[in-house]
């Protein structure tokens, strides 16, 4: 199976990654090779098998809701690409 240009662009938009035309072609080819390879799993009968999410079967691990020391706002904002006072500065999120 070969991924179409539209499918590759759709995946790229879901992943929020910009792609050039060259990349679309290359990705279409490379991803298709991988997806073809994955068909090997269809040979295995997994009708009665439960999925494994992670190996150690821990469930519902929670932390108690107590105030404890955390990072200061200065430490948190120190890596901000754009900031204004103690705020992360971003492009407008909701447009009219």
């Amino acid at each position: 199976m070969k991924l179409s240009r539209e499918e590759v662009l759709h995946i790229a938009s879901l992943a929020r990654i910009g792609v050039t035309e060259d990349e679309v072609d290359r990705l279409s080819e490379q991803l298709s090779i991988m997806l073809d390879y994955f068909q090997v799993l269809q040979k295995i009968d997994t009708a009665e098998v439960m999925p494994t999410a992670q190996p150690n079967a821990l469930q519902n691990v929670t932390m108690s809701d107590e105030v404890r020391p955390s990072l200061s706002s200065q430490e948190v904002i120190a890596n901000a690409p754009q900031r204004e006072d103690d705020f992360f500065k971003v492009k407008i999120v909701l447009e009219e």
Partner: protein
Amino acid sequence: MTNLNELTIHEVHDLLKSKQISSIELTKSSLQRIREIDSKIRALVTVTEESALQAAQEADRLIAAGQITPLTGIPAIIKDNMCTRRIRTTCSSKMLENFVPPYNATVVEKLNSAGIVMVGKSNMDEFAMGSSTENSAFFTTHNPWDLERVPGGSSGGSAAAVAAGEAVYALGSDTGGSIRQPASFCSLTGLKPTYGRVSRYGLVAFASSLDQIGPLTRDVIDCALVMNCIAGYDKCDSTSVNRAVPDYTQSLGPDLKGLRIGVPKEYFVEGMQTEVKTAVETAIKRVEELGAIIDFDASLPTTPYALAVYYIIAPSEASANLARYDGVKYGFSFKDAASMWEAMEKTRQYGFGSEVKRRIMLGTYALSAGYYDAYYLKSQKVRTLIRQEFDHAFQKYDALLTPTSPTVPFVIGEKIDNPLQMYLSDICTLSVNIAGIPAISIPCGFSKGLPVGMQIIGKPFSEETLFRVAYAYQQVTDWHLRIPPI
């Protein structure tokens, strides 16, 4: 005195304890070695000279006060995907090229408490995605055994640095083989612990159900010493298992009489290099001579499916873990965008390298509506079968022996244009992460001067058994004592 750069943790510890050397001397020797050799090896992204000398001074103070522990004052290197407070942590990616973490990974905190002298952060495949360190966005690391060849990946920088004598040990991370395969390629001992044995807090996440941190050392004694320090429950990691950490050095010694070992034939893959096969088979015979009962006909029929399972699960989890890199709170941020979405799309287009983007795309597809059942859910079910098959095998065997890699270190550039070929280098290591079980790679020979590694696999929380086998083997062989001719 032997070249300081060739000593193990335990040898150096004895010298420090008996005051024959100081941590400052040791650290200066390490930094000098880095100055001399790293321009050829390119193992390090950041050299932390100033803080290392400060840590060494503090370590010497502790030692003088009689407060020495096995790792105190010993130069080490940390893979650049583990957060080190106030020290740049890049994951060898443009996305985090200037990222300075405000906190330490738990393993770093633990090593700091033990008096580590961190001399640098090591190069890796970007975001731990790769098997050769060629996917670093900055530069490729060279194998000290042959500079034209790769050191393996993704912990190639850590492995190359220890092999070249830039530090006494290093930490790596392993999601599909990224500690073990570089250990094999650089002739080191490298352990991937049981999933949940070592905290992942502060390890930049790649695939959350597969990632583990582990040691890269010159011998198994050192590996046990590092594990004694870094293993253990951490409430900051919700996948961390609350189980006591034994003194792993106690497992170094008992002989192998009566130990039942299986050699699964599926690991001797078609396309495996003859010299690798021979070296591993010879090593297994040696283990048999040490008293172990070897079944050469063990079989794990789901082995061939591990590649597909891994290359669906890991990219899927990565697509979720790497969604955070949006140029908003930290990291690379594309400035000249017209809109918020364009800013994010261009940030990720230019901040990530091609292998990272490829895997995110693969994972996004596998998780997307209409494909989730056929890919992600299916692979999670096959994952259960792989784990069950190991559980079943461990009823018959105490450990399994396999090659670590089907080949010796390959030439830089040889596989980079063929992703599937590159993925096949991990064929012997992937199942272990899928099942969440521990495995160690130890040197077992050379082929035309290039290292060959043998992998010992155990059931969950059986690191002691792995150490026991590795130790017995290292007592009667000297592969692990050889130094690259660099």
